[in-house]
């Protein structure tokens, strides 16, 4: 299957003071039609900058894309004129953000904001656009959508606002929906509602979703395939079942060990990853995870491991993979 979206060796740099660092450092992946791809990592790993780079929304200055390509339906978005890019944003590719309150205009009604996008991207009249907006609010299951259409963002709860954001993003039938931490600001019962909604909508619309999150639980619920990022690079990529059944990067394993599990009594300690994410201006040589990795040796500290295929659709950037061999070898020694 040809990918819908292909990110190839993307590199996005930020300038601060006299220094430059690459927030995204040679990231490549693909997104197939109808697929949900989870991108996981902690603060500063480059997951949000990756999505902003795809949309060409990286604030410039201080950031700029210095290398690679983003191919959408065969066209490199990085070379498109701004005018064409504008028709794509909110049209074929749309985005929802973590904080729906700051992404909605507080002085415009919900309806006006949804209609604005429809009028911009579709050849329809105001009446038709309003009908479409109403249909979208029904689709995201907002109660009494007729009245909600004429209300302002502050009159809605957090969960409702996120539904409005989703309605707005899907109003023009996008091929790709980029969801950047769509449920992080929400309470857990509301989060469950939104995840159900996204799952249901992707069945109905066939939209491919790029789901950016720090929560491995959310990924397990929604994604088909997962990319784990660390310090601007992809460290592991796998189909969702495989990532949780057979994690092959010590960072992925460490993340899984860091999460308190609902099904455990907490009598055992969490396997915390020692140390902190490296300073982007003073990155370690070799593997960027090596200073925190219990398995690291001199090779890890000098040579960056390439992202290599170790199984079907399973790639990892670790000299020590497959991990079981390394761990068994150590136990025997």
């Amino acid at each position, binding site marked *: 299957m040809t990918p819908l979206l292909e990110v190839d060796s993307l590199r996005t740099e930020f300038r601060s003071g006299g220094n430059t660092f690459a927030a995204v450092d040679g990231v490549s992946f693909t997104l197939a039609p109808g697929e949900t791809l989870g991108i996981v990592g*902690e*603060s500063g790993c480059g997951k949000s900058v990756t999505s902003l780079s795809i949309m060409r929304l990286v604030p410039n200055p201080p950031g700029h894309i210095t290398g690679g390509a983003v191919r959408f339906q065969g066209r490199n978005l990085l070379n498109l004129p701004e005018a064409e890019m504008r028709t794509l944003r909110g049209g074929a590719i749309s985005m929802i953000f973590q904080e729906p309150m700051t992404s909605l205009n507080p002085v415009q009604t919900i309806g006006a904001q949804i209609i604005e996008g429809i009028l911009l991207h579709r050849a329809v009249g105001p009446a038709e656009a309003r009908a479409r907006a109403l249909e979208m609010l029904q689709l995201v299951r907002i*109660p009494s959508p007729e009245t909600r259409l004429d209300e302002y963002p502050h009159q809605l*709860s*957090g*969960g*409702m606002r996120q539904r409005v954001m989703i309605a707005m993003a899907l109003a023009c039938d996008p091929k790709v929906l980029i969801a950047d931490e769509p449920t992080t600001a929400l*309470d*857990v*019962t*509301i*989060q*469950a*509602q939104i*995840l*159900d909604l996204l799952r249901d909508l992707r069945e109905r619309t066939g939209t491919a979703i790029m789901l950016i999150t*720090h*929560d*491995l*639980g*959310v990924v*397990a*619920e929604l994604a088909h395939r997962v990319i784990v990022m660390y310090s601007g690079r992809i460290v592991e990529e796998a189909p*969702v*079942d495989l990532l*949780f*059944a*057979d*994690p092959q990067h*010590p960072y992925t*394993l*460490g*993340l*899984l*060990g*860091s*999460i*308190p*599990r*609902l*099904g*455990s*009594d*907490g009598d055992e*300690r*969490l*396997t*915390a*990853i*020692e140390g*902190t*994410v490296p300073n982007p201006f003073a990155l370690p040589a070799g593997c960027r995870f090596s200073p925190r990795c*219990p*398995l690291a040796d001199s090779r890890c500290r000098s040579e960056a491991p390439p992202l290599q295929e170790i199984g079907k659709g399973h790639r990892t950037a670790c000299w020590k993979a497959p*991990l*079981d061999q390394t*761990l*068994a070898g*150590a*136990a025997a020694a």
Partner: protein
Amino acid sequence: MSEPLLSVDGLAKHFAVHRGVLFQNKIGSVRAVDGLSFEVAEGETLALVGESGCGKSTTGRMILRLMEASAGSIRFAGKDVRSLDRRALRDLRRDIQIIFQDPYASLNPRLTVGETLAEPLRLHGLASGPKLRQRIDSLLAEVGLSPWHALRYPHEFSGGQRQRIGIARALASEPKLIVCDEPVSALDVSIQAQVINLLQDLKEKRGLSYIFIAHDLAVVRHISDRVAVMYLGKIVELSPKRQLFAMPRHPYTQALLSAVPVPDPSAQRARIRLTGDIPSPLNPPSGCRFHTRCAYAKDRCKVEEPALRPIGQEGEKVACHFAETIVPPTLVPENEPPYAARLAALRKFRPATA
């Protein structure tokens, strides 16, 4: 049994709501906390769990008298907290400390970490002169920081390190009870695990009690001894954690557990979905406050408020008329995660390289 360290009875906080600017009319009150009763034993961790607006943080603040209660009593180590004068209140706050969610907002940006830690030590007359420096160094060591960190300012630290500073400041006055208000929710998971481990170590070493306010049930299961689940200002269930997670009795607890995303795509569990949002605390539903979203609600629930009553053999309490007849489905996958063996091997690997 000896007297509990802290006992709270009928605690309430009502905020008046006004309309108008010049001639303010009281148009109602928000019952943020409405008649809470619970106890915390020495060395125990009690978790207060619930969603935004359930009153869990307000409860924490009232215990320290950072906020005055509207009704009810708070007894700490035999003292009536609500009637303490200023002097006695200062002593109370030596014994009860608090850690906040956002460690950056709760540290003075113009004080070095050393100065921040020196303040409570001087105020309570715990250390001075050369002793002061020693105490600061040992506090920093206790939370996993180094002596030279004392000369730095809060902005020079990462989020996890700032939370460690917040913990060190709380420990400075040698408290018996620490109110932890969402202490790890702003942190990345790998850092969160470090801070949770630290809190557990400190509890063991110092025999501390915690009131752990959180919305993350997995964290709560990991750290607490007993759990109080709150909904719209009331406790709906209060049980030892093993019982609460194995057999949640209240429909809200069940829904809350069901909503937590589990990091295991193969997990088989029941889905209970609440519809709608939490009702406004300005105008809470009559009877049982949860009846508007409860799948089991009957006519009785709309009129008669259920009391928090004992149920079961292990001190479980639930506020539901029909708790006996509601059978909880499988909500918590108990199976070992598939990566458990590899994780155990990685954990063992650690000392070999150290």
